[in-house]
């Protein structure tokens, strides 16, 4: 058993009086494809946002690559991380958002080249070549010179995936990446994710409401409810033979809503 790439230890998080995460602990192995499922407000998106350092934690600790994410060692003790430490840690992690978050004033190509040029000092020619490779992989090479406003939602999301990959992160976070898409555009984005899962050894965490996709994609599924992991296991077990009543109820509702699982 290799050392986990992510260790979450007793993490708690509140927004005001609302406790989103309660003493949450789990680990992720390098290269693992993990699906986080559960009802809205169960805390699964918050976990991704905390890993991307978009939300602070209120208690507990997180280790990425054996280094604390939200803390740093100082005089033999762990203190709250400063911006320089967060900057270093963020380089290991990439994220794709529900609303794409592309830069509307930049072309597709510039959206992908900007980060390597700014954060790694990659020369422009090299950044362009890398970006064109990535855009070709997501099937967007022919749109390189267009602005995001000229693209469909599915196309925007594929560009956003290429943009996040351009920094070559060890860990990729996908936060409901198909939730804002028209139904007929979902599949083109899921195909890109399938390809990534098959062809790379990146660690991937996926928050999704597409149960069928979570089943095919993941090595392990975590079912969240009320800020806790209620049940976890291989997808076959969670989707065909869930042990916990809350998991069963949730999946029944999903099926009743018309999804195949």
């Amino acid at each position, binding site marked *: 058993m290799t050392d986990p790439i992510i260790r979450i230890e007793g993490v708690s998080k509140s927004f005001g009086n609302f406790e989103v995460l309660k003493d949450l602990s789990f680990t992720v192995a390098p290269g693992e494809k993990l699906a986080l499922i559960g009802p809205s407000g169960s805390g699964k998106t918050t976990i991704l946002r905390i890993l991307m350092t978009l939300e602070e934690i209120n208690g507990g600790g997180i280790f990425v690559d054996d280094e604390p994410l939200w803390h740093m060692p100082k005089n033999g003790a762990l203190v709250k991380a400063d911006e320089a430490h967060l900057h270093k840690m963020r380089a290991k992690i990439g994220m794709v958002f529900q609303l794409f*978050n592309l*830069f509307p004033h930049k072309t597709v190509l510039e959206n992908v080249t900007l*980060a390597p040029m700014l954060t790694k000092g990659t020369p422009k020619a090299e950044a362009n070549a890398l970006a064109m490779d990535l855009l070709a992989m997501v099937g967007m090479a022919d749109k390189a010179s267009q602005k*995001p406003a000229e693209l469909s939602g599915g196309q925007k999301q594929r560009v956003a995936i290429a943009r996040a990959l351009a920094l070559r992160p060890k860990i990729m976070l996908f936060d409901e990446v198909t939730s804002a898409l028209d139904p007929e555009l979902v599949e083109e984005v899921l195909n890109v994710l399938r390809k990534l899962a098959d062809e790379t050894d990146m660690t991937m965490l996926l928050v999704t409401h597409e149960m069928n996709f979570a089943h095919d994609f993941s090595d392990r599924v975590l079912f969240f409810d009320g800020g806790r992991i209620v049940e976890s296991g291989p997808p076959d077990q969670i989707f065909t033979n869930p042990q916990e009543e809350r998991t069963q109820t949730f999946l029944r509702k999903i099926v009743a809503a018309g999804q195949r699982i």
Partner: protein
Amino acid sequence: MEQWYGYIGLILDGAVVTAKITVLGCALALVAAFTAGLGRISRFWQLRWLATAYIEFFRGTSIFVQLFWAYFVLPLLGVPLSPLQAGVLALGLNVGAYGAEVVRGAILSVPREQYEGCKALNFTRIQELRHVILPQAFVLMLPTFGNNAIELLKGTAVVSLISLSDMTFQAQVVRAQTGSTAVPFLTILFLYFAYSTVISNSIKALERRLSRGLDVTKG
């Protein structure tokens, strides 16, 4: 009729001075607006405090008083200024204070998703501002900047009070010499209007150019 050519020439000389103060004043206002606007959203309270003090002071006191301070009081403190320098300083800082709130508001109205996108790509705060936030915020600032520039243009008329011979000053001269109010003031009325039309059309053109293909609300 002959005599009017000379008088109109005088007013046109004044129009050049007005144009000069407007351009220099706008340049100073732009610098002040960005400095104070960014200061207002700084992480450091000292900078926030300084920016707020500047903005409140210049918005809360009369441009007329500020101009007299710049021209008559600063020399007593060892900073002698020419009428042009005093005029540009007072107008630039006054309009810059209004512009600072425009800069701040525009930056804060760039959607949160854009900031989060930058963080996920590991940009520093400076890179985030320079490459992502300001280019989008600037388009939002433009219409109000246009209004501010026109306010500054109209404000230049007060510099005649510190003996700067702008077009209002020259119109007064012509009025004193000819006894006619209608002709000189009708002339400068048209000139001010022509200037402000140039400003607002230029801003509109710039806005169109910068927002081409841009849909700020939907990344």
